[in-house]
């Protein structure tokens, strides 16, 4: 420790530095205030902290590379997840038709609200941050999050969902500022990226719990998540959560944007069947609002149990319908179910962490989890899901339908403790 050879200012500065290092008030034997090491200059890596070099959990590419090298899908490593928050760096990324992530200067970014309103409004980011804000924890999930027999891991099968704390202005508040006209029924939300992603959203949803979010997990929304501004439409299919949001137009009808033209249409195969659920207009929003879903993240595909004894079966549950009411777990392929414990805070339309004690006796097991939400909607098995759609499971696996595949993904454990996809 160096003697204090400087004046009061220096003393104060060092005192602050010491306090910052949480060792303030340490005194040397001579009774003088200890002097800190020379002020540390933080390198870039220290200034924005890095994880241990021994932690290598990473996103992987979903499906195939897009021919124009555009961002399509990056999948969250759910097998490594703990708790309910996905680190922003590991949040899944999805783009319906692919795009280059725009590099937006927030000082130049604007949000316009117009259409069927009394007062069209144009906001800067600084304007938006002066409004009352709220922070809420919500999951996002791409409707392409469809477990298939070919998937080896939970990341491949279910990695198109993540959960963050989002901070922003309630959309309803901004719409009230603009004064929505009677007769308005929809909004069209649009981004500023290359193809200016646009979606039609029911006004009733816009006035309910949508957020104009500028914060994600305690910092600005990441570029791949829409920096500096994104729409959050909790419980709706991921595509509705428009990134790089620059415009909201209040309108009186569905706009049938390019992201929507393959929805709301009975495909010809189903059109031949007059009883098809697609023929019932009350079902038309069914691929939009997501149902109850859960997945066991550990033990999961590709992992191995290291011998008999105690394990925690743990996973995530969520629902577009609201809060998770309960999660049940089966170790015998769905013959018997037990209530799992909820091991996290329970937020509406958010990942919820569940776990159950399990004593593995080196016998074969089939692990399943089943979510029930606050609306008493229950996650189906694959057989129940296929029966509802009046299709074979083979058809479910080979057809690209825009609906939310929320059936249970089982994991098979063999006598050696190898865990494999139970759909295969």
């Amino acid at each position, binding site marked *: 420790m160096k003697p204090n050879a400087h004046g009061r200012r220096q003393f104060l500065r060092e005192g602050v530095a010491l306090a910052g290092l949480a060792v303030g008030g340490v005194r040397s034997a001579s009774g003088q205030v200890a002097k800190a090491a020379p002020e540390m200059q933080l390198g870039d890596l220290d200034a924005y902290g890095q994880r241990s070099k021994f932690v290598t959990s990473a996103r992987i590419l979903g499906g195939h590379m897009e*021919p*124009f090298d555009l961002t399509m899908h990056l999948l969250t490593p759910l097998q490594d997840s703990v708790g309910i928050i996905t680190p922003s760096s590991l949040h899944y990324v999805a783009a319906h038709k692919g795009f280059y992530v725009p590099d937006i200067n927030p000082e130049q970014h604007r949000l316009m609200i*117009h259409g069927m309103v*009394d*007062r*069209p*409004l*144009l*906001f800067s980011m600084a304007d*938006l941050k002066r409004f009352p804000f709220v922070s809420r924890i919500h999951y996002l999930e791409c409707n392409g999050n469809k477990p298939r027999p070919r998937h080896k891991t939970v990341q491949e099968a279910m990695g198109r969902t993540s959960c963050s704390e989002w901070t922003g202005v309630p959309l309803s508040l901004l719409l009230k*500022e603009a*004064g929505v006209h009677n007769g308005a*029924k*929809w909004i*069209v939300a649009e981004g500023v990226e290359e*193809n*200016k992603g*646009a979606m039609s959203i029911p*006004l*009733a*949803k816009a006035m*309910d719990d949508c957020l104009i979010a500028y914060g994600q997990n305690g910092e600005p929304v990441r570029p791949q998540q829409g920096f500096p501004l994104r729409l959050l439409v909790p419980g709706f299919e991921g595509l509705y959560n428009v990134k790089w949001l*620059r*415009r909201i137009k209040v*309108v009186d*009808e*569905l*706009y*049938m*944007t*390019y992201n929507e*033209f*393959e929805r*709301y*249409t009975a495909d*010809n*195969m189903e059109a031949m069947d007059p009883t098809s*659920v697609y*023929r019932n*207009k*009350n*079902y*038309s*929003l*069914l691929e939009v609002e997501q*149902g109850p879903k859960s997945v066991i993240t550990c033990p999961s595909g590709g992992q191995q149990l290291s011998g008999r004894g105690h394990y925690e079966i743990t996973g995530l549950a969520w629902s577009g*319908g609201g809060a998770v009411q309960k999660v049940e777990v089966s170790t015998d392929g769905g013959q*018997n179910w037990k*209530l799992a414990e909820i091991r996290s805070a329970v937020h509406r339309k958010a990942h919820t962490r569940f776990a159950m004690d399990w004593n593995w006796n080196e016998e074969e097991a089939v692990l399943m989890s089943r979510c029930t939400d606050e*609306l*008493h909607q*229950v996650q*189906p*098995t694959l057989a129940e*899901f296929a029966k*509802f759609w009046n299709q074979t499971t083979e058809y479910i696996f080979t*057809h*690209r*339908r825009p609906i939310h595949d*929320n059936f249970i993904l089982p994991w098979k454990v063999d006598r050696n403790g190898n865990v494999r996809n139970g759909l295969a």
Partner: protein
Amino acid sequence: MGTFAMDWHRPLVLVAVLTVCTAGSAQAPHYNLGKTPTEEEIRAWDISISPEGKELPPGNGTATEGAKLYVQKACVACHGPDGRGALAPRLVGPLVENVYTTEEVMATYSPFATTLWDYINRAMPLKGAGTLKPEEVYALTAFLLYKNGIIQEGDVMNAQTLPKVKMPNRDGFVPLDVSSWKPGRPRPFKIAPDPASPKK
């Protein structure tokens, strides 16, 4: 605070006052933040086209002009000769039998012609989005509609004619009754039956 008189009409008066206040605050701006965009600023960003084509700008185009632009603007490089598809999606083809096994063609699958105009205008060509003039977008839209057998080669597409084009999949569209959808209700169908009570 005084006590309420047990006057039968008193609650009605209160209700009426509250209703007026609520309606008033819902319509008047409270925070007065942001600015009013100019007409030009709105027009420049107002690019989502409704099925009736309310936002379509003035201009005209035909398939003949569109055929030239399809080559000049290098659409052909990614979408292939005659829109048969290459690196980028197919633009000409029949209404697919099953959209979930075969990639659909926007011109034959979308119930509204405005969707084509909208997408070409907002997103094409790759890395040059926003550079096409309205008459060029009308011409390219007309070209794709003509190549798919939906309009005649000489038909002029503009803000009046385009929304009136009868698309082959128009009747495949299930009209959405959005007024029946409310947040916080169960979905109007039940995939899984109610399970038996679990054992503790």
